[in-house]
């Protein structure tokens, strides 16, 4: 049994991958089976999300039972989760109670986090030259200042055209080049991983 299961899992995974891949090349022949397999994977992903929620609750339940310093945070999470589930179940996903929770808690909390992030980033940038007085630190700070000054008209100076142009060049050439390079690397890695999975060499599903 220990030998049969890994082999059968590999066969299922390879055949499924090949059918989905062939669906792109021959949509008329394999389009339907590709659609069915993708539908199954979507259902599994939704179930995985549900499992993730249960796992989160279980982990914090254990932390609550164990006590300790973070126990109160786990209690807050569990209580919040329970209240949210109850209210959303009563009023529906887009009901008045659900929107009240969303607009009163989630939106302000997320916006506040980003606001604090802005303050922390400014503070870190102001201290960066003190902690790392290197040439690349200076280059980083200069780039940051150029992008900031070119993004918006300054309050007293107005729009500085050279800075706007320089900001556009920095954002579209060096930044996008680096990002595209990363994406190309990720894409090549994904292709290699896909081929290994299709060949049964990599078995992330176990075995």
């Amino acid at each position: 049994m220990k030998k049969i299961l890994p082999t059968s899992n590999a066969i299922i995974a390879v055949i499924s991958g090949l059918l989905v891949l062939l669906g792109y090349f021959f949509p008329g022949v394999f389009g339907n089976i590709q659609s069915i397999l993708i539908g199954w994977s979507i259902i599994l992903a939704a179930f995985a999300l549900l499992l993730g929620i249960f796992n989160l609750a279980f982990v914090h339940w254990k932390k609550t039972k164990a006590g300790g310093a973070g126990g109160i945070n786990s209690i807050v999470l569990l209580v919040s989760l329970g209240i949210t589930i109850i209210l959303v179940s009563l009023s529906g996903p887009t009901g008045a109670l659900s929107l009240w929770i969303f607009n009163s808690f989630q939106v302000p909390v997320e916006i506040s986090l980003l606001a604090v992030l802005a303050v922390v980033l400014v503070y870190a940038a102001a201290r960066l030259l003190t902690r790392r007085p290197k040439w690349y630190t200076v280059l980083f700070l200069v780039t940051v200042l150029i992008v900031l000054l070119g993004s918006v008209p300054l309050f007293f100076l107005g729009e500085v055209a050279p800075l706007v142009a320089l900001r556009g060049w920095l954002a579209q050439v060096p930044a996008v080049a680096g990002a595209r390079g990363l994406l190309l690397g990720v894409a090549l890695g994904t292709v290699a991983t896909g081929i290994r999975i299709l060949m049964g060499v990599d078995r992330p599903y176990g075995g």
Partner: protein
Amino acid sequence: MTDIICPLCGKPNPPELDECKYCQAPLNASGFLAPSDQEGQENPFIVSSGDSDQSESQGLKPESTSPLEQAIPDWLKNTEANFLEGTEAKPESQAPDDIAEQIDSLLSQPSTPDNGVQPDIDDDWLASLLAEAGGESSPLSLQEEPLDEKEVPVNADLTGPSVEESNGDEGVLPPAQIEKPDWLTGLEASSKIKVEGEITPSEAFVIGAGVADTVESADTGSMDIPDWIGKIEPEETPSDQEEPGPQIAPAELPGWLEALRPDDSVSATEPVEDLSAADVVTAGPLVGLRGVINAHPSAIRARKPPTYSIKLRVTDEQRARVEMMVALLADEQKPKPLPSQPVLTSRNIFRLVIAAALILPIAWMIITGSQQVPAPQPGEVPGVVDFTQQVQAIPAGSPVLLAFDYEAGFSGEMNLAISTLINQLTIKNNFMTLVTTIPSGPALAESLISPSTSLEGNPGSYSYYTNLGYIPGGTLGLVGLALSPKSVLPYSLDGVNVWQSAPLDTVATINDFSAIIVLTNDPDTARSWVEQVGPVLKEDGTPLLIVTSSQAEPLIRPYYEANPSQVQGMVSSLAGGLAYGRSVGNIQQNGEWDAFSIAITASVLIILIGSISRAVMKLPMSGKKKES
């Protein structure tokens, strides 16, 4: 005068005594009456003769041991012959009838109180012992088959201690000097039980009781006594003992057998220990015996084992040391507390200054509604003009797919453009189909649609939209949506199958929507839409429009600027939202642009001042270090 033989030590006692004067064992219950001097000495063979008769009556003939008789050495046969000759030559001092009476008195007297009361118990007890020893447990077999085995211990018992005592006190021949008949020799040879001197008095008592039962059950009147018993003359026994027997040539034994022989100097019948001080058994089948294990049922009764406390008993000093050790170990695990720092440090003050420098100007601009900073024009922000044209090109009343894939934290940056977009779609009465790939997307979409619809002056009146909810699976979900939106999202959040009613009943694929508008702050999400859904949209020329944040704009912009473009229009950041608003005639900004401008200006100033001041302050310090 009849003495009572102690069942424990085997010594004769006067009949008026209730306890043995030697071992203090009770005599009334189980003592044997010793034969008087006139009646002759006690002879163990009396009982064995009865047993032999009984065995004969039960079919156990002595001839069955003929092979054993053949194995008897010649010296033993000679001894037997001499004995028989000697007894025949002497006149008979007692009649056989007297001997029979003596046997009856011997057998009936001691067995009257106990052994006669519970013969069956003894049989059962003996049967259980035999069964444990591997024999048959059948009662019938106990009565018939092992009868010869019972007889031998009886003989051995009665020839053991009683003869020894009488030998010392009354001059009876020792058992070693009494010549045994053939049948007894054969029985002894075939017996597995030890003979003379190796049987304890208790065993002799029990076995004797069994023999008595057997004798009682037999017809004593017809009992045949061997002739040699009647020929025994007790008065002449001491003389026989004194007379030297015929010289028997010692047998020549092999060396290994000589080595196995026990030491003759040690008497096998010698008592191992003095039992006079031992306790007397007061209950059970061994009642009255001394020096044996008490077989009282309570001794072997299964009872619940006593519970003992597991609490460790320690002294106060030990407890104090343990507490000290526990305290030491607890201190080892505790992290050393950091030295407390004052709340108002230079670092905290600097943080507060930065926060104040950012928050206060922003708040001031929003409160005052300042519009001093010129707003961006549609032509100045890439993608806004095309975006506006694509939205205007959407047929009125046609279905539009809106993907709310941005986090709620980016609402301040993106909501301006999205509100304007929803307002435009509402004006054109487009059917908005809301989907999302993030769990909080449905609530975000619903919360944004409601205020936007209220802008028309009819709050809550616009219901020409449906919220299909969350698409699980990320990129795979988008692929499924592109291939078959009905199968991925068959029902709305209200539980209605919207694909069967207008206007979505005309939508079979994602190309049937008039436009796909993605609202996202994540470049990866935008890329997934472009790469997974975009190729499907190309077939019918359905526009893919994106509203994004400033952080994702650099990565999405190449899709827009590509030729042919994969994104037909885009609105990015707050500047794009303002430009798009201006392009549709909405110039209201509520001071947001000025606040954004002054926040950026303040940030640049803080970074510059902070970096320069810190660098200036650090240069003298580094110079001092070099000098030192």
